[in-house]
Structures are given as structure tokens and as C-alpha cells.
């Protein structure tokens, strides 16, 4: 061999050997994709460098959290899955799961682990975890999104109402809203008794009126746990009453108005006395946006005395894509993060609600009024239907709500049209 060739080969070996050594010693990196920003406020620990420290040390891995924009994360995840370049763990909205399952994007959880989880968690967590016959696709987050009625205690006092007693029935709710409404010198409403969502994404509109719809006996899809097939059941007496309730508050009572489109912002600005939304969002935003706000929360009102207040319970869920690079490690990491011990530790640290029944027996969850009030909401907790056609159903119901409240169709006509579109969406998704 010529000396030049020897020199070239030696140099090449010198370059290759250290990189081979480095490769052998380097850790596997598990990537976790989650929505950044306020959307997961209150439960978003992924930026904490110590969150995974113990797991990383035990398993010689690195967990890297990657923030995505919530509004576009669904399509980004899908595109990444199509390119076989997706994160190992996804922290996604519950409502994404049906579509991901339909497309075959997710890896199912092992049956034995699913069984153990379902046996140990609270009933409302079980509702969010199970996709028919004990099947699970991931772990619902701790401190899920519990929807609740929130009210401004100072406004209540000012209107001569007991600040610790929210309206219990629809009739009371209408009376309270009337008393709480304020007008300016020209008679224009400057503060609404109740602010409601009627613009933006259909899902947001439906979520925020879920309490009245479901509470009155309307169902988006029946049976609620059917992944395919079924039919809508909201075009009934209950559904009509739920839409008419707000319409009467706009037109008859004049205790609310279409001019307050963002209920949470209106509530935090003090121009709405009551609103219904994810509690965690008000809890996270209030210290920053309205530090002096004195507010309370509780179950939404019921149609008639004796009914159980119905509230929406949803949130985010940890799932593992079928094409994850480190699938086994990802499941291991999730098992660790969602263990009873970590559930207790993280919920205590973040003032969030635990998922394990056993953890509710420990302090501060056992006796703190905040947690107990939240716990009192759970018997009426309803989760969003998992049907593959839910997207279309929600679009249809959202449009019906808007048409009725914007006086562009009667409640009957709006719901009849929505029923037809919803059933079509359910049938098409089942194909």
C-alpha cells in the first residue's frame, strides 16, 4: 500500500472511532410533543427540567419536550406520522383521539395495564380513559378540564345576592342574571348577568353549552361510547329547551347579549357576572389578568329541582403513536409518570385533581374546600362522545346554536337541520 493511502485510511479511522464510541455511549431520546402556551395552563409541567430526572437516571434516557401550537398540532402530528417522523409521546386533546384511532395512528395500551388503571382511578377518569370494552389508547392527564359555573362574588353582593350561593335551577339562573345585568345611561348593556360563547370554533360553542344541552336530556350521539355508528339525539324537547333558555335571556330577560363574545375575558374584565367554562383556565388566568377578582365556582344550574347538574369533563391525554421510534420506552415513561405516586406528587404541587381513588383519601385533596367543591361536580361529569363522526356532529350543533341565538332560524328549524347533518356525519364516518 502506498504511503498516501495509509495516511488517508489512518485519518479516516481516527475520525470514525471516536464517533462510534460516542454513539455507543449516547442516551436514547424520547420526544414528547405537547401544546405550548396557556392551553394547558395549570397542568403543564413539561418545561420543568426535573420532571423526568428520576426516570431519565434510572433508564439512561433523555426525555425532550417539544412545544407545538395547539391550533395546528393535529395536522402537524398527522403529517409527521405520514412521514414516519413523529414524537414518541403525544399529549393531545381528548377530542383528537377518535380521528387518530380512525387513521390507525395510535398504539393501543396493553390490556393488562388498561385493566389495572381502570380499576384504580376515579369513575370520571374511567369515563375519559375507556374506549369501549376496556380498551385504552393512553393516560388522561391529571387535573382534567372540569367545566364549572364561575361567578363574581362582588357583583352578587352588589345585586343583593348571597355570594356563596350560585343559582341552582334554570329559573333561579335567569332571575340572578337579570339582577346582575347593568346598563349605561343610554340603556345599553354594560355588564351581562351571564356571558356565553357563540362565536369561534364550533367545538368551543358546544362545550360551553354542554351543561344545558346534556342537563336537559339532549345527547350529541347515542350510544355515547360507540366509536362507529349510532345516531344523534339532541333534536328533542330537552335540546330545544336548552337553546331556548339562552334565547329567552337575550330577548325576554335582556340579561345577556351577543356583544360579549368571549365569556372568560368578559368575566375577568368584570363585565360579565357569570360564565361557564374550563375551571383551570380561569384559575390560571385570574391571578395575572384580574388579581383583585373575588370569584366562586360551582356546578351549573339544573333544569328542575332534583336533577343532577351535568358538567363537561375533558382535557388532554398522553398517547403513543404506532410509528414512535422508542415505543417501549415511551410506554414505560408514561407508566412512570402516571403512577399513583407521581399522580399524588404532581397534583399536590400543581393544585390539580388526582386521578387515583387512593389519592383522594390523602391531604390536601381529602378536605380542602377547593378540591371538595371540584369533587362534588364529578357525579354529573359527562365526557365528550368518542364517535368517529363527532367532529361533524359538533359542527352541526355549533351551527344550530349560532343560527338560533343569532335569530337566523327558529330553534326547531336549526335543530332539525343540525340533526340531519349530524346523522349524515355519523354515517359517513362509520364507512
Amino acid at each position, binding site marked *: 500500500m502506498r504511503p498516501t493511502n495509509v495516511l488517508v485510511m489512518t485519518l479516516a479511522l481516527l475520525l470514525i472511532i471516536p464517533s462510534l464510541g460516542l454513539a455507543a455511549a449516547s442516551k436514547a431520546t424520547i420526544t414528547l410533543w405537547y401544546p405550548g402556551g396557556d392551553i394547558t395552563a395549570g397542568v403543564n409541567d413539561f418545561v420543568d427540567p426535573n420532571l423526568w430526572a428520576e426516570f431519565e437516571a434510572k433508564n439512561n434516557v433523555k426525555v425532550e419536550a417539544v412545544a407545538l401550537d395547539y391550533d395546528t398540532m*393535529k*395536522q402537524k402530528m*398527522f403529517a409527521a*406520522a*405520514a412521514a414516519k417522523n413523529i414524537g414518541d409521546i403525544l399529549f393531545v386533546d381528548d377530542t383528537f383521539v377518535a*380521528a387518530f384511532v*380512525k*387513521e*390507525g*395512528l395510535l398504539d393501543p395500551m396493553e390490556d393488562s395495564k388498561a385493566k389495572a388503571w381502570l380499576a384504580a382511578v376515579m369513575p370520571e377518569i374511567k369515563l375519559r380513559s375507556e374506549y369501549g370494552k376496556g380498551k385504552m389508547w393512553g393516560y388522561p392527564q391529571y387535573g382534567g378540564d372540569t367545566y364549572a359555573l364561575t361567578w363574581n362574588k362582588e357583583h352578587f353582593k352588589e345585586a343583593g345576592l348571597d355570594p356563596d350561593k350560585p343559582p341552582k335551577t334554570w329559573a333561579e339562573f335567569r332571575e340572578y342574571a337579570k339582577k346582575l345585568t347593568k346598563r349605561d345611561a343610554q340603556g*345599553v348593556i354594560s355588564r351581562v348577568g351571564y356571558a356565553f360563547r*357563540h*362565536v*369561534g*370554533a*364550533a367545538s368551543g360553542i358546544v362545550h360551553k353549552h354542554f351543561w344545558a344541552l346534556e342537563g336537559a336530556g339532549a345527547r350529541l350521539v347515542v350510544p355515547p361510547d360507540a366509536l362507529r355508528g349510532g345516531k344523534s339525539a339532541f333534536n328533542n324537547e330537552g335540546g330545544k329547551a336548552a337553546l331556548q333558555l339562552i334565547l329567552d335571556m337575550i330577548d325576554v330577560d335582556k340579561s345577556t347579549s*351577543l*356583544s*360579549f*363574545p368571549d365569556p372568560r375575558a*368578559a368575566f375577568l374584565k368584570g*363585565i360579565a357576572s357569570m360564565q361557564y367554562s374550563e375551571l383551570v383556565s380561569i384559575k390560571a388566568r385570574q391571578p395575572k389578568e384580574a388579581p383583585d377578582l373575588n370569584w366562586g365556582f360551582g356546578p351549573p344550574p339544573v333544569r328542575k329541582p332534583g336533577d343532577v347538574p351535568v358538567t363537561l369533563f375533558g382535557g388532554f391525554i398522553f398517547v403513543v403513536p404506532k410509528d414512535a421510534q422508542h415505543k417501549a420506552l415511551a410506554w414505560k415513561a408514561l407508566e412512570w409518570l402516571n403512577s399513583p405516586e407521581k399522580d399524588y406528587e404532581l397534583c399536590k404541587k400543581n393544585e390539580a385533581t388526582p386521578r387515583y381513588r387512593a389519592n383522594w383519601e390523602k391531604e390536601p385533596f381529602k378536605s380542602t374546600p377547593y378540591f371538595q367543591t371540584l369533587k362534588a361536580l364529578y357525579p354529573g361529569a359527562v365526557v365528550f362522545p368518542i364517535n368517529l363522526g363527532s*367532529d*361533524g356532529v359538533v*359542527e352541526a350543533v*355549533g*351551527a*344550530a346554536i*349560532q*343560527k338560533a341565538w*343569532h335569530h*337566523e332560524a327558529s330553534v326547531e328549524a336549526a335543530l332539525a337541520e343540525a340533526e340531519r*347533518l349530524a346523522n349524515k356525519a355519523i354515517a359517513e364516518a362509520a364507512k
Partner: protein
Amino acid sequence: MTRARRRSLRQVLTRLSSRHILHAYFFIAPVILLFGIFRVVPSIQTLLYSFYKVELLRNRFTFIGLENFSDLFADEIFRGAALNTLKYVLTIVPISAFLGLVLAVMFNTKFHLKEFFKAVYFSPMVTSTVAAAMVWWWMYNPQFGIFNVLLKLVGLPSQPWLMSSRMALPSIIIFSIWKNLGYNMIIYLAGLQAIPPQFYEAATIDGAGGLSRFRHITIPLLAPTTTFILIYNSISAFQVFDQVFVLTSGGPANSTNVVVLDLYRQAFQRFNFGYAAAEAMVLFLFIMGVTILQYVYSKRFEVAY
């Protein structure tokens, strides 16, 4: 390859080389290549997908013929989106062209701070649509927005703007006109400045008034510019998306849903790629049809000077 063939190939190459045809192709090759990869291939792929049920993650493509198209025409949400798109195009194209012409005529005269005002009118064109739409979203806010504040000042009732199914589309159209006006103005201004002044001088000597000069000289001689503006504005109006996405997301009650938004939802929210491809093809055919129609019709008014 026979020797004769090799020789003939060499001759062809030599001829092409001597005329610099090969060099020309070499220089435009990167553009052709990139255009092919990012435009032509996806377009062909979209055409093919429109005849299939596409399940990307399962890598399953089921040929279903024209089923996506028949579903499309039976889908009232798509029909509503197509109608909204048509309303949008038919409103925005003539209005923004007309206002652009009016502004161009005004800016074709001399006045104080002319260049500054020209820049002011053109600035929306260079502003990001998403950023501008966010600002307009606040301006349309029924509670705090400036439009309702102004209406109140003149004693008129507040309007729901984007909150109402009846007013949302007109509100988006107003925004889009504001956004496009500057571009049309500049193109018309260039067209106006290209008209030889002798025509106006001759007409003035013949006793033609300002309006007559505008009708009989300016408008006919601006016909090629108008054709360009109508075609360009129609194409971009048919593809409207950003402002609708930011301002209303297609609501309330689908009253501002447009074809591209519906296509986006079908493809990236419901993963119905075949169906979305069919929507894209229908939109493509529509744009092509309108463009050909405008082009052929405008030939009648073609002028040379």
C-alpha cells in the same frame, strides 16, 4: 447504438450547443426542477387522489372513481362554501378594481405629500394578512372595537360585525378590499402613466371634456391593465383563506366558510384527503374556466398604441 445513430445524436447535440439551447436549458434547470417537484408533482398527485379514498397512514389507496365528486356536489356544506366563495369573488373583484382605478386617477395628478399617501395606501399590501386580520378582529369587536365606537359617535346603533351570520362575510370583504386596494392602485397607476399624453392633448384640442377623455381614452387604453387586474384578483379571491381562518374560522354557522377553508378542514382536520383533493380539482377547474373566459372576452378590448 449504431455508429450512424451515434453520429446523428452528436450532430444534434452540437447544433443545440452552438445555438446555446443546451446552455439555456442548463440555466433554467434549477427553476424547472423545483417547479416540477413542488408544483407539478403535487398537482398531479392531487388529481389522482381525487379519484381515491386515501388513507395515508395505512398507505391504502382505494380507487372509487367519481365518488368523491358526487359526494361533493351532494354536500350542502361544500355547496354553501362554493356559494360564499362566489359571493366573495363577485363582490371583491369589481369593487377593489374600481376603487383602485379611482385612487390611481387621483394619484396621477400632482399634489402635496402624494408619495406619502401612495405609501399609506400601499402599506396594507405589504402587511402580513394574518397580522392585519388580528388587528381588524379587534376593530370589529362589538364591545371595544373602533367601528362600533365610531358608529356610536354618530348616533348609529352598534353592529355585530363578525358575530352575525349576515354581516360576517361583508365584514371579511371590507377587510380584503382594504388589503388589496393598494396593489390595484399601483398597477392602474403604471397603466395610466403608460398612456401617451398625445391622445389627451389631441382630445382636448378637439374639445373633449375630462369625463369624455376618461371614458373614451383612459378606460379603453387601460383594458389590458384591467384584464390583468380582474384575472389576478379573481384567482386570489377564489383562493381566499387566511383572513377567513383568522377572523371567523368559517363561522358563524358556516356563513363565511369558503372552498379553501373547507378543503383544509377536510384534509387536515378530518383527514379526508381524497375528498379534499376533489374539492381542490373543482376549484382549479373553476379558476381556469373564469380565467379563460376573462382572457377571451378581454381580447375584444385589446388595444395597441
